[in-house]
């Protein structure tokens, strides 16, 4: 059972889930860079300021792009505004969902919760289910059979990856789960990580969301216009997804599965300020996984602290894709392949489970 059998079984209930547990890869101890407690504590400190500033800019950007899109609709002049609005709606919400889900974006809890729920609605991620799936992602990052958020499964399905840039599979799954949840049910996989006491919340939110989506469709029919469905619901989620997928694939794409060291299965990539605003600094992904309670606005500082213990960051998105694309293509035929990573001299990778303290 030690050797992985290909193709891997990525379900939460299958062969590799059992294997991960047997090998001690589940809920294991992971490598952590030896940053002093005092410094980490300093970096973990919360503040509302940066996220309030960013959220005000975010909301203003929504109103401006939507306003111009509506004003120019249906002329071609509306297209660039829809495209910009779509990136806000379908991509920037991914990072807001993420940061506010961790509860680190704002110091004030209700602010995290409000932005979390808004972002979840836009990107069509059931807030309770995704909170728990992401919890698992952090416990068992890229452990096959344990991590429900492995974006690119092997062997690589190229059309699936390309379709992902338009959120085809994600949105289809989201619509399906909306109906399942609204009917008062969870999938078998969701049942493995959403505790019973949280389930009624899933059903309640799904029913509200379904009512909103149906109302938007009704308004569109009443107006004899596509405008409402271009602004709210699955469509903007799809036509605006490409930026979050572009950046999201850099997080773990092509890297190792089943290791207990984030330096081997996660990637930090330098990005320009616009992408970093959309992505809320999740380009510092090794740092985020190793110390998930450090707020997004402190990650550049954590990156500097961790430099002696990690490998150099990819210098750009293009630089990252230069290694990701060949790896994904190679993984079509050789799903056991992972991009080799060389850690700084004297820093050992953690690849085997160690006994819990």
């Amino acid at each position, binding site marked *: 059972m030690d050797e992985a059998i290909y193709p891997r079984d990525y379900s939460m209930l299958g062969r590799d889930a059992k294997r991960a547990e047997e090998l001690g890869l589940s*809920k294991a101890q992971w490598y952590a860079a030896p940053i002093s*407690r005092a410094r*980490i*504590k300093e970096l*973990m*400190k*919360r503040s509302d300021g940066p996220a309030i500033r960013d959220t005000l800019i975010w909301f203003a950007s929504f109103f401006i792009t939507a306003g111009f899109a509506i004003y120019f609709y249906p002329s071609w002049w509306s297209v660039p505004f829809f495209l910009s609005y779509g990136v806000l709606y379908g991509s920037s919400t991914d990072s807001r969902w993420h940061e506010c889900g*961790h*509860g*680190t974006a704002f*110091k004030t809890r209700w602010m995290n919760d409000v932005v979390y729920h808004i972002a979840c609605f836009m990107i069509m991620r059931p807030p*309770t289910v995704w*909170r*728990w799936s992401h*919890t698992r992602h*952090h*416990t068992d990052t890229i452990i096959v059979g344990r991590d429900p958020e492995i974006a690119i499964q092997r062997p690589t399905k190229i059309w699936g990856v390309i379709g992902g840039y338009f959120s085809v599979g994600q949105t289809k799954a989201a619509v399906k789960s909306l109906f399942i949840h609204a009917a008062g049910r969870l999938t078998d996989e969701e049942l493995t990580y959403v*505790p019973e*006491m*949280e389930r009624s919340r899933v059903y309640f939110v799904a029913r509200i969301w379904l009512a909103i989506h149906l109302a938007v469709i009704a308004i569109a029919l009443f107006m004899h216009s596509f405008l409402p469905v271009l602004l709210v619901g699955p469509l903007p989620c799809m036509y605006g997804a490409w930026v979050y997928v572009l950046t999201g694939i850099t997080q773990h794409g092509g890297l190792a599965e089943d290791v207990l060291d984030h330096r081997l299965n996660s990637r930090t990539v330098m990005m320009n300020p616009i992408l970093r605003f959309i992505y809320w600094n999740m380009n510092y992904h090794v740092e985020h996984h190793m*110390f*998930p*309670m450090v707020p997004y606005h402190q990650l550049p500082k954590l990156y500097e602290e961790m430099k002696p213990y990690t490998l150099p960051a990819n210098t750009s998105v293009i630089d990252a894709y230069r290694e990701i694309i060949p790896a994904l293509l190679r993984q079509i035929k050789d799903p056991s392949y992972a991009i080799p990573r060389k850690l700084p001299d004297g820093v050992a990778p953690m690849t085997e489970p160690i006994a*819990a*303290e």
Partner: protein
Amino acid sequence: MTQWIDACAKDDVAEEDVIRFDHAGQTFAIYRSPDNKFYATDGLCTHEKIHLADGLVMDNIIECPKHNGRFDYTTGAAKGAPVCVNIKTYPVKLEGARVFINIA
């Protein structure tokens, strides 16, 4: 029944902070609140057994360093997902410069 254990010196714990204390195969977390009072809880998060001493103390809340689970360390109350089970608290007393916890 009481079993007071000498856990640490008062100065070992900074204000609004937490340290880990291991004793007889058990692990505990010792807190010093912003108003300079001391508290003790089990050392591992009830969600996934992560050491709370690596977490962040904010007022009377300890936040787990891994998944953002929060407890009120003065009462042990779980404050929302992903922690659903309260954490055990222990009585604390101060004697001179030392902090004792009752683990009975």
